[in-house]
């Protein structure tokens, strides 16, 4: 009886069922195949239903006639209270300041960010802000695109 029980115990340990053996060696492969099939099928079925518009580029290049345009705009908005040098027009009054900055933003497509609004105290500041070009590209991409000497290699590992 004891011997019989011992044999049975041994048998259970050593003899794996056929299903268990497949799971150990072949089942893994089967799962991979299934996954591959799914991957191949999915992109064919997917239609471009979600068309995402390209992200808004922050590129800004100051136009050539910026100064004259700004002068005209300032004279138009501030009217009589423009001093001799129009660049020294103070933007203290919030309503006029808003009108000026709003018009410029809609014309040039480039807005003064909220954090820099308090720095715009005179028309000269506004002129300086709108004269600085803004580039979209990160410095690395710019560097890669620029003409490098032949002994400088930039290796991206992504």
């Amino acid at each position, binding site marked *: 009886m004891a011997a019989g029980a011992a044999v049975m115990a041994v048998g259970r340990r050593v003899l794996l069922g056929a299903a268990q053996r497949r799971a150990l060696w072949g089942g893994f492969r089967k799962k991979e195949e299934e996954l591959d099939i799914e991957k191949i099928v999915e992109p064919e079925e997917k239609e471009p239903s979600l068309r995402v518009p390209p992200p808004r580029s922050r590129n800004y290049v100051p136009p050539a006639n910026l100064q004259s345009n700004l002068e005209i705009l300032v004279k138009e908005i501030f009217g009589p209270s423009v001093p001799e040098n129009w660049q020294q027009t103070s933007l203290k009054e919030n309503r006029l300041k808003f009108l000026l900055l709003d018009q410029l933003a809609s014309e040039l497509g480039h807005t003064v960010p909220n954090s820099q609004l308090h720095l715009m105290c005179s028309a000269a500041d506004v002129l300086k802000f709108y004269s600085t070009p803004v580039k979209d590209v990160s410095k690395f991409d710019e*560097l890669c695109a620029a003409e*490098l*000497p032949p*002994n*400088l*290699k*930039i290796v*991206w*590992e992504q």
Partner: protein
Amino acid sequence: MTGRGSASRFLGAVLHNGVGRHVRQLQRLQLVFSPVAPDARGARQFVEEAAVDFARRHPDVVLYVSPRRCPAPLLIAEYLNGAVHEELVSSRSCEEIAGLAARLAARSGLDIVRIRKPFHTASPSVQGQWHPFTNKRPGLAARPNK
């Protein structure tokens, strides 16, 4: 540490450099840094500002710039004699890294260890090393006993 305890070498020029034209011994410089880590700020600034300048001034050195995920920014210099010298450039400014690169470019690949003698020559004697029997008559040497 005594001289015996630490490494030392004899004076030498690499591959008779300087006999013909001078050959820069630095073969390539690899700057490995992370594009986001805070201690690689100097390295990033170096790449943006000074790397192109360095490459133009040293046309015989190849500069590889590898922005990738790494634990610390390194400047790896490989020399013509096979020596590889790694320098940690974390938390260093752009100017320091540029200076370091220039210094590495000026070095030969020989190890910086104690030099045993400040002189070395491949031909120590032209007419033959003197010994006590030089310029003496031939019969002075010992004769075998008969």
